[in-house]
């Protein structure tokens, strides 16, 4: 338990910072609504089976007699080519997108953060090697590496997620490393080094906890981008496979029918747009709040 209270103590300034940031974020109307929408989306994702009008339509149940019906009071978003309720499928899609994006960003953090702390904390040749590797990964245009990896791993949602992790971690390594380099020369780290604290303990106990704030900001800003990337991979056929109600896949399937069924492509696209937009707006807000030059009290 002592370990816990210690951690809590070191985290206290961070928590205070977050509370203040949240307060500042909450003052801007656009960002306040975005936060509310994010909360709603999360609720939608969790309670999808209870909220959606036809939960059985989400995966495999079909009713061909209702195929490609325009929006009506029974089917608010219309139906797809197998007569499934599009609204229910879009709601379940929220679950898939949020879940996949959170896991992908989490895993990328898990890989990128320790590597960055090691690079910045240890320095020298280790730093050089790790950073040159991240340089190479970042020299691919966004999405490209993920497409290549996903196609070689074989098309599936898990592999798409893995592909995103492999192409995304270097961003976090770079941020953490920048932080770590400046912290390495601070008094308390020097003191730890002088008293003979082992390197692993310096990196993971002294440096790492002090580098987390900016990377958390970056990660929250990245959620929107990752959702977009998953949808793009699925659209290309490299992500979720039918009958998964993933948004990108829904739009991809709709291509055969959309000229005579406008609702089929329109609603999943709006769902992607709103979700990515609110995450981007909040991310933008967080950055503005944390940047002392644009911070307004």
């Amino acid at each position, binding site marked *: 338990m002592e370990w816990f209270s210690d951690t809590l103590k070191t985290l206290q300034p961070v928590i205070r910072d977050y509370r203040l940031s949240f307060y500042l974020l909450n003052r801007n109307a656009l960002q306040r609504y975005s936060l509310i929408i994010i909360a709603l989306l999360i609720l939608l994702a969790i309670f999808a089976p209870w909220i959606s009008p036809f939960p059985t339509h989400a995966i495999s149940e079909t009713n061909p007699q209702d195929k490609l019906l325009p929006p009506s009071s029974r089917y608010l978003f219309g139906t797809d080519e197998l007569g499934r309720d599009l609204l229910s499928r879009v709601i379940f899609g929220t679950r898939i997108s949020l879940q996949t994006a959170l896991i992908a960003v989490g895993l990328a953090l898990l890989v990128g953060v320790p590597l960055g702390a090691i690079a910045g904390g240890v320095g020298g040749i280790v730093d050089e090697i790790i950073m040159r590797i991240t340089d190479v990964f970042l*020299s*691919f245009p*966004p999405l*490209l590496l993920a497409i290549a990896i996903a196609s070689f791993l074989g098309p599936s949602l898990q592999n798409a997620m893995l592909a995103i992790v492999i192409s995304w971690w270097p961003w976090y390594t770079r941020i953490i490393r920048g932080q770590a380099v400046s912290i390495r020369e601070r008094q308390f780290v020097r003191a730890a080094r002088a008293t003979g604290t082992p390197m692993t303990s310096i990196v993971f106990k002294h440096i790492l906890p002090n580098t987390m704030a900016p990377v958390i900001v970056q990660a929250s800003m990245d959620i929107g981008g990752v959702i977009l990337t998953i949808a793009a991979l699925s*659209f290309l056929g490299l992500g979720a496979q039918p009958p998964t109600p993933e948004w990108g896949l829904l*739009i991809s399937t709709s291509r055969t029918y959309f000229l005579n069924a406008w609702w089929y492509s329109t609603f999943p696209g709006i769902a992607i747009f709103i979700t990515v937009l609110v995450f981007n707006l909040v991310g933008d807000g967080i950055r503005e709040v944390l940047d002392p030059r644009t911070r307004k009290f």
Partner: protein
Amino acid sequence: MKKFILRRLLLGVIVMLGVAVITFFVARVVPSNPAAKWAGPRATPEQIARATVELGLDKPLVVQFGKYLADLLQGNLGYSLRTRRPVTLELMESLPATIELVFISTIAAVFIGIPLGVISARRKDQLVDHLSRLFSIGVVSLPTFWIGLILQLVFFRTLGIFPMGGQLSTEIKVMMEIPKITGFIMFDSLITGNFKIFFDALWHIVLPGITIGMYPVGLVARMTRSALLEILSEDYITAARSYGLSERIVLWSYALKNSIGATSTVVALSIGYTLVNTFLTESIFTWPGIGSYIATAVIGLDYPAIMGVTIFSAFSYVVLNLVADIIIALDPRVRT
């Protein structure tokens, strides 16, 4: 200056080598049976065995990589599983169509995005600024492929103004001889005076052009705005203002010139985004570029073709960033 460029070029070569290493790993080491992938899903055991020899998979990894690198240097990207033709050749054939699209969207990014960013910075926190920021953040939140479909719904299906896809109308393709000099239809028809073909091509590029161009316009506007805002708070801007220079000169001449570094980096970045976005949109507009090529390859799991496009795009992106860095180096403050 010369030294900086030389060093940057050398770094570029090293990065390209790194790109080759990663693509090698993705193609040869990550899959459990690369020969089977390379030979295609319906390959016979003999074909797989032949692919094993062809790729040198029976040799040590270092030897394999050497062969891979030698092939790359000779521009040999293997044979497409679908068409059995060299991937390099097919890439060269589909490249002009993609370059036309990327070119149009980059022009839009520069000539719409930069002024939008400047105006936004000038009128910070006013209505114009809010609208342009909302636009910028809106377009980067939109799935590109969806914009394409919606534009088709509105402008083809409902209004019937623009064609659904393709580079030229079928009548024109059948009735007229398409000039082939450089492979760029618009350019070729313009210099040979075939205005009918030129305008038909122009008509066809509008919807894919808007679809592809939205993202870079938003991105460039956003970056230009933030770069300018940073510069506008510098002392030399205050000094320029205090000399009584007009706000227009301060903004467009003093501030914008100093933001060229940030802007050229973001233009390079946006070209990279555009290139990848063509992968998602060309197939919607049956645009015969490398985007359609890789989209077809992905569906058929045509690995040599996928890898070919990946390597080609990654290398062009490295070159692009190199150019951006050299432009930045024109700024004496950056040079060291």
